[in-house]
């Protein structure tokens, strides 16, 4: 498990671990909201607790009322979220969107609610079935003092319950990000339950009018903002995947130590031991890659983007391996709804897709390396 954290980071981890292990646990969040078929797919009370504990402000500057910490610290929280499959707006709202708002005038409008754990924000980037942010066809046409937005978006995590949606659209000046408020005229939101029981959304923007205050950063400057947003989201998702995979492995190892077959513990079979040893190594490397990416982001390093893709690719493959090994080593019960291990597999599927899957990022690494 974890790394070589400083005292503050250790404290943060303990706080997050305690919260997610108790109120954020599978029984108290994921299964509860799933079984009641909650339209939001997560608990607002827990989000409020995130606010009370200051977790929502990890990436918010101290001047704006946040903790002024970095992506490494956000990753510490996300690893605990991953372990417990805690459905939470944390990754998108408190990491990706907060990164988008950094240094913009929109801070004043949206940060207080986010800090309080009251506001939920969403990101409307993807248009096809896969994450391909290079392809943005949604249009932003100048209209009066502002813009008219048209196009379709999907895989908008928490989009059905978001108070504000950051949407990427193409204007004459290039890609621009806009903050669109819930309920805007011409905005159609269709909540969809994802494999992990969270709610994503398909959105249709049919001439949604926004004024120029809604522009996030500069008109036509969306690519730079998007790059920061995606780096933040991808690095964060990597940590969540590492936490998810680590817990899947821990549950599986526990099972190997209990379950007997042919008169001995299945954990005594060498073939399973080798697979467990391999998985353990992979998780350590994936965790290191995620932390490295976050350190580079915190340093503002030029080459952070490469390491972010390395981290997402490595964490994605490793988490997928962990849940697959986990379900298989559990045998038949691994596929039953009664056991939690199958929920890890389902969450892994969604989290792997979010912000680009392992293939996308390995391909991106190759392209960045010029081949």
């Amino acid at each position, binding site marked *: 498990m974890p790394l070589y954290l400083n005292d503050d980071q250790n404290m943060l981890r303990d706080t997050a671990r305690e919260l997610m292990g108790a109120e954020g646990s599978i029984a108290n969040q994921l299964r509860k909201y799933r079984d009641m078929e909650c339209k939001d797919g997560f608990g607002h009370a827990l989000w409020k607790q995130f606010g009370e504990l200051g977790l929502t402000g990890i990436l918010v500057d101290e001047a704006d009322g946040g903790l002024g910490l970095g992506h490494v610290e956000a990753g510490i929280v996300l690893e605990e979220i991953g372990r417990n499959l805690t459905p939470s707006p944390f990754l998108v709202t408190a990491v990706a969107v907060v990164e988008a708002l950094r240094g913009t005038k929109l801070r004043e409008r949206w940060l207080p609610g986010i800090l309080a754990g009251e506001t939920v924000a969403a990101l409307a980037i993807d248009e096809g079935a*896969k994450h391909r942010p290079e392809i943005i066809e949604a249009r932003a046409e100048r209209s009066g003092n502002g813009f008219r937005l048209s196009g379709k978006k999907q895989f908008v995590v928490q989009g059905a319950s978001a108070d504000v949606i950051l949407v990427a659209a193409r204007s004459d000046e290039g890609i621009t990000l806009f903050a669109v408020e819930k309920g805007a005229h011409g905005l159609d939101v269709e909540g969809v339950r994802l494999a992990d029981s969270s709610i994503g959304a398909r959105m249709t923007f049919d001439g949604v009018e926004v004024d120029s205050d809604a522009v996030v950063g500069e008109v036509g400057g969306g690519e730079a903002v998007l790059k920061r947003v995606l780096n933040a989201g991808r690095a964060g998702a990597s940590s969540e995947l590492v936490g998810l995979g680590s817990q899947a492995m821990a549950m599986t190892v526990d099972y190997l130590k209990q379950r007997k077959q042919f008169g001995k513990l299945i954990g005594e079979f060498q073939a399973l031991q080798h697979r467990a040893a391999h998985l353990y190594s992979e998780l350590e490397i994936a965790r290191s890659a995620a932390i490295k990416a976050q350190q580079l982001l915190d340093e503002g390093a030029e080459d952070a983007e490469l390491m972010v893709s390395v981290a997402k690719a490595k964490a994605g*493959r490793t*988490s997928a391996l962990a849940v697959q090994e986990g379900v298989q080593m559990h045998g038949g019960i691994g596929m039953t709804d009664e056991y939690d291990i199958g929920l890890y597999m389902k969450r892994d599927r969604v989290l792997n897709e979010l912000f680009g899957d392992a293939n996308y990022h390995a391909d991106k690494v190759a392209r960045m390396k010029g081949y």
Partner: protein
Amino acid sequence: MADLDSFRADTRAWLEANCPAEMREPVRDESDACWGGRNAKFKSDAQKAWMDRMAARGWTVPDWPTEYGGGGLSPAETKTLRQEMARIGARNPLHSFGISMLGPALLKYGTEEQKKRFLPEIARGEIRWCQGYSEPNAGSDLASLQTKCEDKGDHWLVNGQKVWTSYADKADWIFCLVRTDFSAPKHKGISFILFDMASPGVSTKPILLISGNSPFCETFFDDVQVPKDQVVGEVDKGWDVAKYLLGHEREMISGMGLGGNSGSLGEAFADVVAQDPLLRADIARFDVDALACPAFDDEICRHRAQQAPPRAGHGRRRLERARMGQRPLEEGQGRPRMAAHQGQFDRGRDQRGPARNRRQAHSRTPRSLTHAALPQ
């Protein structure tokens, strides 16, 4: 040869005349197949007509003897029939564990009375059977089963529990492994027994899977009384029957599933593959395997024409299928991911999920496979 040619011509004509058009469409999923049974729910008149017409000729079980409801066909004729059915895409008229599993075991181990009693109703799809093998703490170690069967003089008394009983909640009868001698070594003292699922004391409980489906059940036996003449083979020697049956189960499974001649995964998902070069690489290799595996099946078929079924071969074959289903591409890049690609949505609790792992759950062969690893 001339006989076979005329058999082929006759068969072709009969199939053309008797196989309804909608029974020439591919089966969409297990619920779209015809399972028969006392409470059979036919999806359409055509489905029932197709089963009945085939059953009337004994062609639901073409190679069984006619006296037990079969078609009495030779291996060559059976193959010809299957080829002609494949030619027009005719569906299997009747999916049945009675046909694929119990039938062969009864033909080999059953008494004449048992064969006459059970086989024809299997052939006609009147009774749907389920298989009572796995138990909660036995897992891969099937022979450690604990379901108790006591000889009460005029009947057997069965108490215990089975698990992973496919469609137990829909089945009419069960063929079941029970322990009749607790003092014997674990592979001894097992008997192979048949009884009606409507017997007092039998209850079932579906198991909810992460896919949202429940094809499997837990099955409970609480003082179930079974007539004395419903043990197949010798008492305490049910393990032999069980193993023989498993050989047929493996054959059936090795003929199912992914590969077959069902075409190329990449071809089917060409649009998804086009935008993901790494996925394309994985799928190209997967397709190589998917196209190579049927060649192995063909070799096994050629072999069968000459000798007894090669069990180890089927076991290995099945392992390979399981491997492909489970991680067709590479570690952590399982086929289920493919499903996730097609659309990230609409999957909640009803998603297809890793249904292919099911085979793994039923896997009872690792030891024999491992032994096969080091040919002497």
